[in-house]
């Protein structure tokens, strides 16, 4: 049918025409066109750093375009700040959460539009009622009285979505909304998106996950290196078609992995008990072991003790009881420094909070655990020449872009930040590599790279512990799969024999104990 024919009868709510945005000499958007139609989902697809966020920030008033114009409901508008965007009914759910951590869920949602009673007193009762109502209406259940700092990343995402819905946006920009959701939650979200469009709301879905674009979107704009590549009707294409347009080459979806016999057990956890921030038991008598030369995948829904388990292993959280062993040595309640020295490396779940010092440049970040050792420091004096040589080597080997070791980590795209962390951790040559959500928010090309790195590590006869909420990833990459539910391992299966239905059932607590 073609895009032109399909869209002929639809009402345009937003038209972005020939949008160009330059930062100095760098062209972030090069004459990009985007039309959004009433009651439709328009996906925005592109690799990390392709210019998706820039385009949306222009629409949301955070940047002014260098040239081009924006029309809302056929009228030319000048969106110079987010308040104007909100006035025009545009709501945005950011990729990095904009939440006040010590506030409760309800307080965050009503922020800026607080219900007040006669004497300008905050009417918390009504607020709670409103929040409950809206969260039930869209099927995004949250505890309105929980503090943000106590709830999981996945829950925080829900609050962000609710916040935009509470403000009654007509056009909702969702920036990588599913990056942290479980498969079940993604299905729910897609249902929510469908409900919203049914009510006449329009959605812009920024994503590089092809599957959810196919499932949720009506149209899809593809951007590559700032350039407008194509706008397609989603029902007329498939994942391969979208992927090759996005990356500019054919992409393989299957992880290449030879069979490998696992070696002896190197790492084990016995009867581990760990409490969470609220002093509630999060890891409950957990047992686990990993062998040399195998990737053990940990499947589970966010909030079942994964974070606490990881923090306990890496020395960031106190162990109540139980034992953690590596290479025959007890590392229970060791400090992070001791854990690192026992040859355990860790790709952390939250790369901006734990993984990187964003104000440090790439080279300084590559020596985070080794800054005091030769050749990086001699007698306490940093050897910048050696550090630079080392950083350059890693940048080359792990294809970090831009290829400048003096670039601040903050300025890198998410995928390249992750590459810096992986480069650092893998280069420590660990006996056990722990990878927590290593591909969260990354594009197809970068995911391919991360998976290859993990498998390489396994092929070198090292142990790898992969924690992910993406069931596909766990099933593709792991050799064995352990399922965690309410702080316990409820089942371990061989990846060859794993079926998505059984795993899903176990993740929901219905497995055989």
């Amino acid at each position, binding site marked *: 049918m073609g895009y032109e024919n399909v869209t002929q009868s639809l009402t345009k709510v937003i038209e972005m025409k020939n949008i160009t945005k330059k930062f100095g000499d760098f062209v972030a958007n090069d004459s990009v066109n985007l039309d959004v139609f009433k009651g439709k989902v328009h996906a925005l697809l592109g690799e990390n750093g392709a210019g998706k966020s820039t385009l949306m920030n222009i629409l949301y008033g955070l940047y*002014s*375009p260098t040239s081009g114009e924006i029309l809302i409901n056929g009228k030319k508008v000048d969106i110079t700040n987010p308040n104007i965007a909100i006035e025009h009914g545009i709501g945005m759910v950011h990729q990095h959460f904009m939440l006040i951590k010590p506030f409760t869920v309800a307080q965050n949602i009503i922020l800026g539009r607080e219900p007040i009673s006669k004497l300008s007193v905050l009417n918390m009762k009504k607020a709670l009622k409103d929040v409950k109502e809206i969260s039930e209406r869209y099927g995004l259940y949250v505890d309105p009285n929980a503090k943000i700092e106590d709830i999981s990343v996945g829950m925080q995402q829900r609050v962000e979505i609710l916040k935009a819905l509470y403000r009654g946006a007509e056009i909702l920009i969702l920036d990588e909304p599913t990056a942290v959701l479980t498969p079940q939650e993604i299905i729910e979200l897609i249902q929510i998106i469908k409900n919203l469009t049914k009510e006449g709301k329009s959605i812009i879905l920024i994503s590089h996950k092809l599957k959810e674009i196919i499932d949720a979107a009506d149209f899809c704009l593809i951007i590559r290196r700032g350039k407008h590549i194509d706008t397609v009707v989603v029902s007329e294409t498939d994942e391969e078609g979208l992927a090759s347009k996005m990356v500019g080459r054919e992409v393989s979806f299957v992880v290449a992995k030879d069979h490998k016999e696992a070696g002896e057990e190197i790492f084990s956890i016995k009867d581990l008990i760990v409490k969470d921030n609220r002093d509630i038991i999060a890891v409950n008598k957990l047992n686990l072991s990993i062998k040399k030369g195998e990737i053990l995948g940990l499947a589970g829904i966010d909030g079942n003790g994964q974070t606490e388990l990881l923090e306990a292993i890496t020395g*960031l959280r106190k162990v109540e009881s139980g034992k953690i062993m590596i290479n025959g040595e007890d590392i229970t309640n060791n400090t992070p420094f001791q854990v690192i020295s026992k040859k355990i490396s860790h790709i952390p779940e939250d790369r901006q909070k734990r993984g990187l010092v964003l104000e440090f440049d790439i080279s300084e970040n590559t020596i985070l655990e080794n*800054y005091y050792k030769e050749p990086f420091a001699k007698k*306490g004096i940093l050897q910048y020449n050696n550090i630079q040589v080392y950083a350059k080597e890693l940048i080359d080997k792990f294809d970090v872009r831009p290829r400048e070791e003096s670039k601040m980590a903050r300025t890198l795209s998410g995928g390249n930040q992750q590459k810096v962390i992986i480069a650092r951790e893998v280069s420590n040559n660990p006996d056990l590599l722990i990878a927590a959500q290593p591909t969260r928010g990354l594009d197809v090309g970068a995911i391919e790279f991360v998976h290859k790195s993990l498998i390489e590590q396994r092929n070198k006869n090292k142990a790898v512990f992969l924690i992910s909420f993406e069931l596909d990833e766990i099933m593709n990459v792991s050799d064995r799969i352990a399922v965690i539910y309410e702080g316990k391992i409820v089942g371990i299966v061989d990846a060859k024999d794993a079926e998505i239905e059984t795993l899903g059932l176990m993740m929901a607590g219905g497995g055989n104990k």
Partner: protein
Amino acid sequence: MKLKLKELRKTLYIFATEKTIGFTLISIFLGLVVGAIFLAAAGFNPFQAYWVMLLGVFSKPSYISYTIIRATPLILTGLSIAFAFKTGLFNIGAEGQFIIGSVAATAAGYFLHLPLLIHIPVVIISAVLAAGIWGGIAGYFKAKFGVHEVISTIMLNWIALYFQNFLIYTKGFQKPGGETSYSIQPTANMMILKTWKQSEAGREWLLQHPFWKDLLRTPMNWGFVIAILMAILVWFILNKTALGYRLRAVGFNKFAAEYGGINVNKNMIISMFIAGALAGLAGALQVVGVSHKVTLIAAMEGYGFDGIAVALIANSNALGCILAGLLFGALKYGGTKIQMFPVKAPSEVINIVIGSIVFFISIPKLIKVILTRKNKKEGTK
């Protein structure tokens, strides 16, 4: 003409927003403008006042010397605060650490009897250690009990102040009949050519050399040189050593530092110790170089608080603290000149100027907004 204006604005914009010296200079300029407005409003000629100030700082060797003497403790308290800033801590306690440093220096300078070349280093080291521990207490409280360093250092400031006053009324330390301590031994005095200045030959020579006479009229001492060396040392520690790497990592992102195996609590204590030591050094140099004793104080003298402004003007850059401290010293010393004939303006105006400079530096956003209005639409980020 219009085009040129546009370009000028763009250049100014880049100059002002890149967190550079340019930005600081614009802030200083705006501060002076605000001060001028106040002067004019109070009925004084601002140009004349600033001219008198300029002359009051530069026109005589002794004036320059006094300015440097004024600047020396400010450079060091500025460094103390800048160092803490760089490692993620806000040291409000430089004031108290300064007091502890000067008390310890006075005690070591008066009670100990040591040879000339050894006495001064011993005095300085005792002061630095005492003030370092004073600062370290705040670091320890934060690491162990989670007490915010702003709260604990404010409390420690008052404890230090009353501790000094208490000592001044203590027998053996108090100079009989006065509200001051005994003066330090001559061996602990760091003034340049002190004995020679007062000798017969010295006085004769100086009579024939008016430049030197004027210069040596002041309590000129080695403090400034030590302050500069300290600024270089702090810069070196922060940027070139493994310790500095660790401290900055904790300052920028303590979660990542902890994850990387760095002991966050230990480094907070170290950082506060070093910050305290720097402020204590300021106090010690003031004693060995200028005052030679401590006196009863009714309120905070402000060396530590002025240090906050110095650190802000210097953008927490260690070497920048030298320039910021000098600027501050010049404003403070030059400010006293406009009180006299012919201007006779209140020196408080100088505090307004200093306040405005700090104000403009703290609100880079406003300057950005003023300069960007149009640039934004033209597409410069």
